[in-house]
């Protein structure tokens, strides 16, 4: 199913044209943000439900802001803190919400594949995956690509739209940390690969398994060896519980070997982009100072979340019509 008028479930199945469709549309929505009245009537009368079965204030706010700027009615259900029990089937929960009459569901769920299942349960409702387990976080992947293109295009003094996918060809993207458990990494890898970038992942053997090579990425286990190679460094959040399990001996050791420290930053070119999907564990995968370094585009990522999510909602729900 195509993105326009359909769902956004995973970036594994999205074409280059669809990715550029989102990025170009998002670019036009950045303007909206700069107006005095930050609203367009694109989704007037449409109902968007944000269903968060897992806490995520940032992503939820970003989506809800995006939906409101498109003039949609937003039903917000923080299921993680509501009365929905773990025992209730996903189908029942969705059926309950569907009965309210919906055009779209923005779904965050702790289980991989939940968005695909919901799209099967309610096929006539547009489903936007806002992160499913360890599988995908497609809008994060799209806003990361958007941010990279935006910054690189600015450096050339052109708009992103004019460059299409050109700026990604041969771009060296390094993804650092807990790739195994990261839905952001899966979405980033999918979008960057599709756009023609060269990708390396680096992390300990437990978190950056060699089997990742089958995705067309190069796997490394030594950050210092690959650090200077990168045009873009994408850091991943490491869950604190990983440090106490069998994946890494401790967060301190992880940080020593795979953290972007001030010392490592000194070796990174001033042109390199440093990215993080947030929330950051300052002092673990990223040093306090590094997060605020000139190469860091973390705040841009957050800001771009809204126009990219506006673009996704607009394209899926309205099929790109009615502006």
């Amino acid at each position, binding site marked *: 199913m195509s993105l326009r008028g359909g769902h956004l479930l995973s970036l594994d199945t999205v074409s280059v044209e669809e990715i550029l469709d989102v990025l170009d549309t998002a670019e036009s929505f950045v303007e909206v943000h700069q107006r005095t009245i930050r609203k367009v009537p694109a989704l007037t009368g449409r109902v968007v439900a944000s269903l968060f079965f897992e806490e995520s204030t940032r992503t939820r706010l970003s989506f809800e802001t995006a939906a409101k700027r498109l003039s949609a009615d937003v039903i917000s259900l923080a299921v993680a803190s509501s009365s929905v029990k773990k025992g209730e089937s996903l189908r029942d929960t969705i059926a309950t919400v569907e009965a309210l009459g919906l055009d779209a569901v923005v779904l965050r*769920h702790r*289980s991989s594949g939940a968005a695909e299942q919901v799209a099967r349960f309610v096929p006539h409702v547009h489903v936007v995956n806002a992160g499913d*387990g360890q*599988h995908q976080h497609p809008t994060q992947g799209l806003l990361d690509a958007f941010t990279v293109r935006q910054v690189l295009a600015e450096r050339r003094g052109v708009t992103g739209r004019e460059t299409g996918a050109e700026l990604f060809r041969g771009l060296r993207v390094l993804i650092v940390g807990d790739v195994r458990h990261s839905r952001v990494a899966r979405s980033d890898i999918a979008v960057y690969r599709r756009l023609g970038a060269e990708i390396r992942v680096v992390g300990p053997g437990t978190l950056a398994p060699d089997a990742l090579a089958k995705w067309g990425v190069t796997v490394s286990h030594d950050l210092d060896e690959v650090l200077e190679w990168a045009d873009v460094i994408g850091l991943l959040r490491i869950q604190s519980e990983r440090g106490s399990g069998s994946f890494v001996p401790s967060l301190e050791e992880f940080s020593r070997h795979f953290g972007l420290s001030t010392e490592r930053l000194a070796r990174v070119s001033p042109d390199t982009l440093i990215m993080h999907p947030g929330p950051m564990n300052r002092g673990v995968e990223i040093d306090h100072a590094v997060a605020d370094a000139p190469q860091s585009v973390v705040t841009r990522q957050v800001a771009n979340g809204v126009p990219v999510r506006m673009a996704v909602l607009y394209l899926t729900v309205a099929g790109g019509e009615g502006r």
Partner: protein
Amino acid sequence: MSRRVLRGGIVVGPSTSQRGDVLIDEGRIMAVGENLDSGGAEEVDCTGAWIGPAFVDLHTHLREPGGDAAETITSGARAGVVGGYSALVAMPNTDPALDSVPVVRDVLERGRASVLDVAVCAAITVGRRGERLAPLGDLAALGVHLFSDDGTGVANPQVMRRALEYARPLGVRLAQHCEDADLCEGGVMNEGEWSLRLGLGGRPVAAEEIMVARDLDLLRWTGGRLHLLHLSSARSVSLALAARAEGLDVTFEVTPHHLVLDESACADYDPVTKVHPPLRGRHDVDALGELLRDGRIDAVATDHAPHTPESKDRPFDEAPAGLLGLEHAAALTHEVLGGDRPVDLFRLLSRTPARIARLHERGLLGLSAHGGDVVAGEDANLVVFDPSETWIVDRARLQSRANNTPYHGRTLTGRVRHTLVRGELRVREGDLQ
């Protein structure tokens, strides 16, 4: 009418097949031969079909007691006869577990009221908790021949060793679910390229092979009889075959789903493909098929595991593991065998499993004899299998209470035409009677 003649089929023996009729009376086979005089017996058309011993499933989750929303002994038995079975071995992971004489007696009692013979695989340990031995001696005295904690394996090697030692002089066989629980922690599908892509926790093939190797080493030391349930890796099969070549009394089964579905079936996150051990990589699926065609697999068992639709409407990681098997196992096995191997089909689905469960002996648990030759004097537990009929699986038309089949919409070749249990025609022209 109890007098019937199965007319015009191909009678499948232990090594050859030949055209013939089978005359049945009083639950027994009276005569086998060409152009038998029916003497007014009911004629049952078997033209173009294979007549052999009805199938015996070593591995059926009938869910009673405690799980009758998903299946009952009655509904599971119906699914069984539609699939060509005359005997099922009920697995012990019920609630309460089949770990005591009263519970086992109750299941056998309900089985007697069903359309086929129900035998029991009782628990090895109390509550299947892997700690204290269940009353193996009392249950063996009752006639129980198979014991397993299936659902899970006996994780503690000391407990498994004691169980083997205790079981050996009783003459019974322990059946193990081989998956190391620690290696499978958090795992919901085969560990590999697909689990990584889908972001689902993995159950590595090594978890099975390690436990197979461990139990074979224990068996070498203790002696006794071991059956390995649902082997899903070619290496597991090699280990079992090597152990048997040494003289160990080990038997094993594979399931239809591990023969025809690989891990990529999980790609759309439909929990109907979630099963333990998980659907494996293509390499193992192909290798198991090769072993099957080479005659190196002992038995095909279904691991028929009904679950309610509600439980399969959950996310993949939360849904229970297991899928239906009874109604399609024969056609799927037939497909993997290549479509023209009647002797092997009946060996895999009837003769060998009957011997592993000791159901070839009349009288065990008060049941009739299964998996025998199609000759005069044998109990008339027979199936008539049409090797060329093609049909499409429809989950809305199953005899099982549940509908969690991964084969919905699949075209199958080969179908059970008639099933006879103790001479009674339980399925006629594919329809339950």
